[in-house]
């Protein structure tokens, strides 16, 4: 229910209400609404908008020795684009995003559809699958440090039974990012499945019954009924998943710190390194501006594309 509410606020098409009703409602409640919203707005302003402005300011200024700040125009962006580590981080983030979002979403839909009937076995399986969601990412990362340990870790222990030799998953620049991707899928798929389950509840059973009577196969029903009606849910989950790709780095920091050789260095970690390890706030702020802008436009674009051709009930 709550799920449906969030969706409708975010995704509902703007319903044009007759002009006079709008005006009639507007007079008194508006002031009350303002005062009711004021505390939240104040906090939002203080902790969200001011930092955004501060980041923008930092992006166009340079901090010299002794902490003096001078205007620097687009210099930080030039320095950012000239830094090969930034491009490495960007491409890593791209691979990481593609590698986590697509499989997690597919998994979430498959699991959601398979487990949607409320049987006792399904309830248990759902709990098992959702379990990683309740674990903090830091704890998961620490756990995976042991799972991925070369030779003695859980993964290698079982792979060895299949005759696969010990692999230094996190220690090899070719595999480290994929190890991190695997962890993220494990952690997130269950979370996205919850949304899919909620979305599935909203699909009227009559549609499936009618299709069954018409002789549609399970696959046809999935692709012609379930998937199209899940689109609003998927659009929402996609945006959440993309935000996760950019904002979650606990596991990177715990497991590899971005290494080896920058192979798992993704944007936020790059920003962290620039700001806190190198004290280069200007370049860090420039990278922040770029990544937030990219994230914002990607989110809007994906919502727009998915909104087109969306099916709404009644």
């Amino acid at each position, binding site marked *: 229910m709550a799920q449906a509410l969030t969706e409708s606020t975010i995704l509902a098409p703007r319903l044009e209400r007759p002009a006079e009703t709008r005006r009639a409602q507007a007079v008194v409640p508006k002031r009350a609404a303002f005062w009711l919203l004021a505390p939240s707005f104040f906090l939002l302003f203080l902790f969200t908008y001011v930092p955004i402005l501060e980041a923008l300011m930092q992006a166009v200024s340079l901090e010299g*020795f*002794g*902490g003096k700040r001078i205007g620097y125009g687009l210099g930080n962006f030039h320095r950012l684009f000239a830094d090969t580590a930034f491009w490495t981080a960007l491409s890593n983030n791209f691979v990481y995003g593609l590698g986590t979002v697509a499989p997690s979403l597919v998994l979430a839909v498959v699991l959601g559809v398979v487990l949607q009937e409320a049987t006792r076995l399904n309830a248990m399986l759902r709990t098992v699958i959702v379990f990683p969601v309740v674990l903090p990412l830091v704890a998961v990362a620490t756990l995976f*440090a*042991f799972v991925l*340990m*070369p*030779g*003695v870790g859980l993964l290698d222990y079982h792979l060895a039974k299949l005759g696969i*030799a*010990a692999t*230094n998953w*996190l*220690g*090899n*620049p*070719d595999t480290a990012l994929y190890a991190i991707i695997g962890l993220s899928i494990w952690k997130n798929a269950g979370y996205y499945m919850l949304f899919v389950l909620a979305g599935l509840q909203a699909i009227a059973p009559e549609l499936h019954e009618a299709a069954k009577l018409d002789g549609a196969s399970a696959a046809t029903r999935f692709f012609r009924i379930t998937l199209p009606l899940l689109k609003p849910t998927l659009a929402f989950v996609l945006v959440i998943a993309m935000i996760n790709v950019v904002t979650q780095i606990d596991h990177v920091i715990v*497991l*590899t*710190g*971005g*290494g*080896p*050789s*920058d192979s798992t260095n993704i944007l936020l970690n790059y920003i962290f*390194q620039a700001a*806190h*390890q*190198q*004290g280069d706030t200007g370049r860090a702020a420039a990278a922040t501006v770029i990544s937030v802008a990219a994230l914002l436009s990607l989110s809007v674009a994906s919502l727009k594309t998915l909104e087109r051709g969306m099916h709404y009930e009644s």
Partner: protein
Amino acid sequence: MRFVRSMALAVAMSTITATTAMAATRIDFFFPVPVDGALAKEMQNLVARFNQENPDIEVIAAYTGTYDETDIKTRAAIKAGKPPAVALMSANFITQYHIDDLVEPFDPLVRAEGKSPEDLMGQFWPALSGNARTDGVVYGVPFQNSTPLLYYNAEAFKEAGLDPEKPPVTWEDWVEDAKKLTRREGDKTTRYGIMLPGTYDILGWTISALTLSNGGQYYNPDWGGEIYYDTPSTLGALTFVDDLVHKFKVMPEGTIQTPAMNNAFFGGQVAMIVSSTGSLSFIRQNMKAPFKVAFIPRNVRNAVPIGGASLIIPKGNSQERKEAAWKLIKWLTSPQISGGWSRFTGYFAPVKAAYELPEMKEFLDKNPDAKVALEQLAFAKPWFATYNTVAVRKALEDEVQAMLSGKKTPAEAVKAAQANANALLKPYADATALNLPK
């Protein structure tokens, strides 16, 4: 009514002011714990003891995470205008604090007591003064220090026909022993001879230990704008490590995460590891097979860098707070407290006099491994510290990690590391050594 209320308020206010005036000087103390949780509790105990013994000062100890996090939090606090009066700072970060003009010199506080900075530094092991002083001025007082050590599995030594009383002394011995200790079953290696930690931070420290053992200096200790990566001593050290992996095959390929290394050592999958003296207590608690420690083997000479942390007073504190901070620092670095902390943690005590205490002598007799760590101190050198230390360190670490995975040769690695490090150091060089009369 209103009058009464405002009177009451005024009285209440003045009482508050009065009590603050009489109350102790309140100071904040930021401290990191790089090893494990028990240390944080012990530090809180120490501070509680100090507060009891010094009713005129109230120290509020704040646990601030790792060394890196403590650096971030201290800088943020300074920026916010509320610096802690004392911070326990990774010894090689102090140079950057000095460059950024964020740290108070200790000299005036020492001189006010009629002593000289030499008297202050004279209490500590000579190796520690390199990181504590910049241009002759003291900016940090050493509190907990370490050096890298060679840890080896005595049982594995016996099994391989080696004498556990005779650890490798030179790199030649090291390779020979490692070959004998490496156990292969078909194409699988069930026990490696050596593992070196490959995680950022400790990797740079380990490589600098090997470079120093190879006769190198690693960085310019007098000026923060130079690092010596593309040099024979560093190239030799890297080639040695590369050979361990790819030529002698006594060390696994790829970056070895520190927890994986420790686990392999505890599980007998590796016979020798390099780790900090600060890990001594941790390894003692977790290692079931008998183990011993030894100096880091040498190629040219015995030499290791120090590690650990020093106490600093960030800028922006009032004279009163500075004096309270100085009192706390003197107390924390007194032989008794320093010795107790050393026995508890495994770090060595920076104060020489700590080792004259009977309880310390007894401890060393019972724990000969702690004695080895102490003896190696005679060969210790300062920890590399430059402008932008962490990034400069990472410039080499990224290349070494590529080399460990067989993606670069040692020669390519040192060249790329030098180029990247030079670019990072350039702003400082431009502002100082290259800032010439026009």
